[in-house]
């Protein structure tokens, strides 16, 4: 009993010593460094996209560090997981803890993330209190940057929730305009996947569709855990709309695409940026995916000549193709790095306050074009791009850039 107890007593001491040793080595390595946080749900059903975001951001960091850092500062990255297995996906409570970790670490000057708006709602007040800016590449719920909710989400007043993607207030409605004006459909049926993002998209789409004079024949909800959607698809088939709009992610999306191919092969099918997803295309496959419309809340980037080599590098480095969030994450990180550089060049100390101000005044050319933010933190460029999925056998099936054909910009809402 004494020996066992003595051994047990030594364990914590050993752990502490090892911990300190590792940290010490790390601290000695760099002269000057700053830390950028990355908060994504690496656990649960959103893990796919989380990794793609992280990878996109990491390319920018690795590029910067490889060329000697930014204004002499080495960029460290603190990746925190805001998904928990109990929630099975993103968890706002965990995101709140992560935000506190960022804020209380003096080395952290800015962050990328979160992926999901539910986490954003929990993080925003904390970030505002700590005056730490975060740039989200994919959180599209408009409430967080809505001035109406400013007392709740940014109690300290300044914008801290920046986006390199435009919100659901535009993506869904612009697509409704596209339906009305370009596709000229009249009768539609709407489905969502019950999640925060999907419901937001579908509802915004529905409101605008009605304003555009379209007939919404119904709006029902899929359960992502359920396997069989033939019931609702059969019902839709009997009702006979010309088009189907889906707000949601690939969890329900894959099954929907597959099963609607069998039950409703002829009608027009569309979705938001949840459809423009490598996981969805890979999971549903062709011919089921053929013809699906998708939108992304960003300008079309493939026209940018820098993009193709970037994709090559991404694929070489991570073994899989990027998706739209990878670009927006990369862009966000570029903005942060640029902000750090401008602060350092101006002779100011590099901390979260100065970096936030620099981000606010950003005007930077990135993969998606010029990025700048309005006073709420939203990206000024509100372009929504429309794509259609056509099988391109020359490229791997999860290469969204090549499996989706760019059709143009969706008509903006007035």
């Amino acid at each position, binding site marked *: 009993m004494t020996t066992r107890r003595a051994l047990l007593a030594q364990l914590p001491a050993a752990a502490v010593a090892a911990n300190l040793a590792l940290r010490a080595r790390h601290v000695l390595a760099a002269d000057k460094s700053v830390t950028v946080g990355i908060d994504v749900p690496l656990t649960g059903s959103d893990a796919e996209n989380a990794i793609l975001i992280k990878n996109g951001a990491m390319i920018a960091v690795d590029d910067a560090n490889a060329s000697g850092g930014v204004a002499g500062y080495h960029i460290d990255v603190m990746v925190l997981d805001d998904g928990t297995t*109990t929630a099975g996906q993103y968890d706002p409570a965990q995101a709140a803890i992560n935000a*506190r970790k960022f804020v209380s670490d003096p080395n952290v000057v800015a962050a990328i993330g979160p992926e999901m708006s539910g986490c954003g709602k929990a993080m925003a007040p904390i970030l505002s209190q700590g005056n730490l800016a975060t740039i989200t590449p994919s959180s599209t719920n408009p409430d967080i940057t809505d001035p109406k909710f400013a007392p*709740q989400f940014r109690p300290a007043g300044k914008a801290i929730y920046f986006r390199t993607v435009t919100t659901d207030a535009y993506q869904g409605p612009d697509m409704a305009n596209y339906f009305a004006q370009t596709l000229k459909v009249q009768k539609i049926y709407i489905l969502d996947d019950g999640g*925060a993002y999907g419901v937001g998209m579908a509802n915004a789409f529905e409101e605008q569709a009605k304003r555009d004079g379209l007939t919404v024949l119904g709006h029902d909800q899929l359960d992502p855990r359920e396997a069989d959607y033939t019931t609702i698809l059969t019902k839709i088939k009997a009702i006979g709309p010309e088009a189907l709009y889906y707000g949601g992610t690939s969890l329900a999306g894959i099954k929907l695409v597959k099963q609607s191919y069998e039950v409703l092969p002829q009608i027009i099918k569309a979705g938001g940026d949840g459809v423009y997803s490598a996981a969805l295309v890979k999971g549903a496959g062709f011919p089921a995916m053929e013809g699906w419309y998708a939108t992304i809340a960003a300008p079309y980037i493939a026209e940018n000549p820098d993009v193709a080599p970037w994709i090559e590098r991404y694929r070489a480095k991570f073994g899989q193709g990027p998706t739209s969030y990878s670009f927006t994450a990369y862009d966000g990180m570029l903005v942060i790095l640029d902000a750090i550089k401008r602060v350092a060049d101006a002779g100011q100390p590099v901390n979260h306050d100065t970096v936030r101000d620099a981000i606010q005044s950003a005007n930077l050319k990135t993969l998606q074009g010029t990025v700048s933010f309005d006073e709420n933190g939203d990206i000024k460029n509100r372009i929504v791009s429309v794509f259609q999925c056509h099988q391109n056998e020359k490229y791997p099936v999860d290469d969204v850039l090549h499996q989706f054909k760019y059709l143009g910009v969706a008509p903006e809402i007035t």
Partner: protein
Amino acid sequence: MAEKDLTERPLGMLGASYAWIRGASPIQWIAPHMRSPASIGFLVAAALLFPIISRNDANIDSMANALSYAALALGLNIVVGFAGLLDLGYAAFFAIGAYTYGAFASYQIEPAWSGFWEPFQWLDLVARVHDPGGDLVHFQVSFWLMLPVSAAVAAFFGVLFGAPTLRLKGDYLAIVTLGFGEIVPIVARNWPSVTNGAMGLNGVAAPQLFGWSFGIGATPYYYVGVALVALLIFTSLRLKSSRIGRAWMAIREDEIAAAAMGVNRVKFKLLAFAIGAGFAGATGTFFVAKLQTATPEMFMFPVSVMILVMIVFGGIGSVWGVVLGAMILQVLQSWILEDLSQWLHALGRLIHIHWLQQVELAQSIELIFGLILVTMMLYRREGLIPATRRVQGLTLAQQTAHVGSGGSAGNPDRLAALLAPDRVPDGPLLDISGLTVRFGGLVALRQVALTVPAGSVVAVIGPNGSGKSTLFNAMTGLVPADEGTLRFAGGNIARLPPHAVLERGIARTFQNLRLFPSLTVLENVMIGMHARLATGAVGALLRLPGTRREEEAARERAMAILEIFGNRLVPRAEHTVASLSYANRRRVEIARALASQPKLLLLDEPTAGMNPAETIELAGQIKGLHQLGLAILLIEHKLDVVVNLAQNVVVLDHGEKIAEGTPDVVRRDEEVIRAYLGRSASVGSAAIA
């Protein structure tokens, strides 16, 4: 209170680690009677000083979450641990508490302004908000007010969801609660006007104290969490050691026996659901006030399972155990595994192993939960800190003591005061006529008539299967009577539930012993007194002088009743009945029945399984009870006991009364002999003593 003293328990590896963590060595420096206060003092100091020591906002937030889960674990412990009702949908009450606060403290619900709201505005519960479309009402009810209000709302739903489960057995009850647990988040998702649906609440208000808003920093919330958990621990402990707690544990151990001893099962099960749900409702309010948002996904089945794992791990039924279990698992999840993963990443970078850098231990927390559930159930069902206390060994003197039959001979006046029935009516005490009980096609009792005069002993005999126990069951409401009248002490007892029959003054023992196995002898006996005590939940909580006096008096009475059986039970008063010998368990059952101050005592084969010496002893004790004025209805097979004790004997065969009279008359009766032996008297009369 001996829960905390673990140093002498047989310890496995887990227990040894725990003892070490708890500072087994330092604790031995403190004198035994100071150990409990010292431990509590240490814990309180640690809890209060933690934010000052840690200074890390994220860690403090983590601990605040851990405290929330500890509070939830305490609530579920009341339902599952105390009352034995497996609730698999507990997260529903957490959700109800959260959304109730959210409804009244956010911008979610904004009805149009009208004069109706003015008094509320004056009370500062709502504010008038200007809006281009017409003024609106903004709810801003204070967090401190909402804590008890949400608890009450959740308690209401606890009763609502619990009511359908009252008659279900354990696993069906679990499934129904699981069903409700699933329905609540679905409703939350599909009721956007109140909950903002899947997108989650926006801007739930932070608590305010004297005009100062809590804001974002985790520290004030942490202290509120500590206060909440302390309050809930206090409540749990007070309830556990009160009449309420005993009633719950009786229900958990043996529901039928509990009812037969006067516990109103419906009332207490619903009370357990209500209080358990109330805990969760208050915690939901706290959690959401801290997070300032809520989404339906935060309240689904995995959360219910997580709380269950916490209490299984910590020790079902043990208040400190479940708190410890919750804290350990939550800290493991959000802190230790995270840090361990970062440490492994650093190690991976150091020694250039790629997969180490990718490992995320936090992702396997649910796998760990599953493993904990299975291993705890298989190997240590009582959890880290078991709820049942350890048994103090008997001293050598006690073990080798002469058996003194004590009791009646010792202090007849005192016993008379304890047990003698207060008011004895004229006429027969018990009057049954035409009693018929059918089980499907089988007629168990047919037109049975029976009277027991006040203060007499009547024996019921008959071959096996003649319906004797069914008679008792019909009398005590455990089995419905199809026909017949049952009158007792001038009142009708025909359709009464078992606990009401006990209240009227009939107490029984069971043929196959129905004690409460993991409770002590003393607790078993005190449950017998349940119907004669008056302490309710509030009284148990506050422990006013009246309640304390009642408890002490009850304890004394229980000990006095145990003394009837000499030194057989008294030294074993704090032992669990499962550890007693068979004969002693029979005695405890009788003691328990006596504790309810019955007018009529129903003994179902009280001497079954006893050897001749024990039989004689018990018969003597029963006679003593009779001499105090108790009426006794006795089922017995041992005819010498019957002859010794009974004034009147009723013989049943195949559900019918075939003979009645004094013992001498009955045992010579032709019918009786034929019933027992299958042949007529002339052939086998010598067989009966």
